[in-house]
Structure formats: structure tokens, C-alpha cells
């Protein structure tokens, strides 16, 4: 069964990288809080203060970030799809346990896919937005730039895990 849905380049942000490391390590870096903390936040901007992940459909995805020594910002969501070493989907539109959340800002659904290529891994991160206005706001706010830096840090971190 194919679970792939069409990506809309006008609404969705996709970033692709080849990581010279086994898929197993990429999955670990993505799903274990102690690894996520190492790469999720651009180091020049701030840090991950707290991360909690219950990696199963409906499980919690919660990452608190802080810029410098400033206030902490939460990011709370819920995993939707978990196929180990293949595909991980979560959304900020739902609270853990699929409980409908209340959001007035810019929700995203994130889709990560990974695929073995030789001895390495092809990694694709996609963020789905509601509409062009949301996508535009995420571009302007630095969210997109931060995500790109984070993916570079992920590549670096996974390579160091080998």
C-alpha cells in the first residue's frame, strides 16, 4: 500500500540530503531525545532545553527550544505514522493521543522519509503548510532557514555517530 500523498511545492517545504551513514543511525538520531538535542536547534541560535518523544502513532512529540539564555518556547505535537528506518510523520495540529489541539498560528505536518542508498541514506524532510500565507510566514520568520541549518547539523551529527 502506498502512503505517499502528492506534495504541493507552493505550500510545502522539502529538503533532501544524502547522509553517509546507515539508515539505522539516521533513525536513531531522529527518534532519541538525547540525539535530537544535538542537532534540532541551530547551535548559533540557541539550544534544545527539553525533548520528549513517544515514537508510536498518537505518541507525544515535544521539543522545548531556547534562544540564547532567553525564554523557552514549546513545540508540542503528535506522531501520526511510524515505520522504523523508513518514515516518520508528526503534526502540530494534534495533541498527543490524537486529541484535537487549539491552534491559531502556523501548524505544520512534518514527513521524514529515509531510504538506503548503498552504504548511506537518502533523507528527505517535508513540512506541509495549510496555505501559501502560512508557508510565506515560515519563510520570513527564519523557521525555514533554521530547519535547513538543523538538517545540516543532523548530517554532521549522524556522521559523528558512526
Amino acid at each position: 500500500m502506498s502512503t505517499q500523498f502528492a506534495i504541493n511545492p507552493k505550500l510545502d517545504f522539502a529538503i533532501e540530503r544524502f547522509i553517509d551513514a546507515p539508515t539505522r543511525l539516521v533513525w536513531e538520531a531522529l527518534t532519541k531525545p538525547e540525539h535530537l538535542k544535538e542537532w534540532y536547534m541551530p547551535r548559533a541560535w540557541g539550544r534544545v532545553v527539553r525533548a520528549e518523544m513517544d515514537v508510536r502513532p498518537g505518541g507525544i512529540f515535544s521539543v522545548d527550544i531556547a534562544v540564547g539564555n532567553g525564554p523557552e518556547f514549546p513545540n508540542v505535537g503528535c506522531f501520526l505514522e511510524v515505520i522504523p528506518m523508513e518514515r516518520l510523520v508528526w503534526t502540530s495540529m494534534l495533541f498527543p493521543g490524537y486529541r484535537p489541539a487549539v491552534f491559531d498560528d502556523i501548524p505544520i505536518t512534518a514527513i521524514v522519509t529515509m531510504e538506503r542508498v548503498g552504504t548511506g541514506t537518502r533523507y528527505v524532510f517535508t513540512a506541509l503548510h495549510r496555505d501559501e500565507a502560512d508557508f510565506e510566514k515560515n519563510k520570513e520568520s527564519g523557521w525555514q532557514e533554521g530547519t535547513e541549518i538543523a538538517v545540516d547539523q543532523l548530517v554532521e551529527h549522524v556522521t559523528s555517530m558512526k
Partner: protein
Amino acid sequence: MVQSAVADEVFYALSNATRRKVLEQLSVGPATVSELAAPFDMKLPSFVQHLSVLERSRLVKSKKRGRVRTYVIAPERFKVVEDWLTARRALWEARLNQFDQYVKQLKEKESAS
């Protein structure tokens, strides 16, 4: 939800200065998202996430009328914190009373000898 998970969410919600300030403001009366965000120097999406953490812990409730979302305090969950602290205090007070009595006994023994 099991009680410990409820306590986790409530204490986590309270573990942040921004969220405690919001609760202080809401204790005075209901407020809209923009009213709540005004005192803080942060982008609205980040601030809304704080509200969502509070809402998830059910320390606050929200209602949407037209395009405006209004938040109110939901006092029931504060009892989770109060009950936990009360139980700890009961234990410590009982211990202090016992200690008090023991010291009195020692004193009586000393004056009797």
C-alpha cells in the same frame, strides 16, 4: 488519564515563567490571545504554543467567537498541585510533631534524673 500523567502535564505547564505569567493574568479575568501576548517580546506562533501547553494541561480553557479566541482560567486542575503539596506538608508536619514530642520526652527524662 492516570493521575500521575495529569500531574506531569500540570507541573510541566507550570515549569515555565511565561506560562506562569499568563496564569497570573488570567486569574484577574478572561483575556484574548493578543491581550495575553502583549506583555511578551516574542513571536505570536511561539506564544500560541505556550497557550496550547496550558490548554493541554487544562489549567485554562478557550472559546472562539468570530475570529477572536478568549482564554479563561480553569481552577479545577490547580487542585492537582494543591493536593500534592498538601500531602507533602501533612507528612512533614507529622514528622515535626513526632520530633517535637521526642525532644520533650528527652527533656522530661533529664529533669527526672
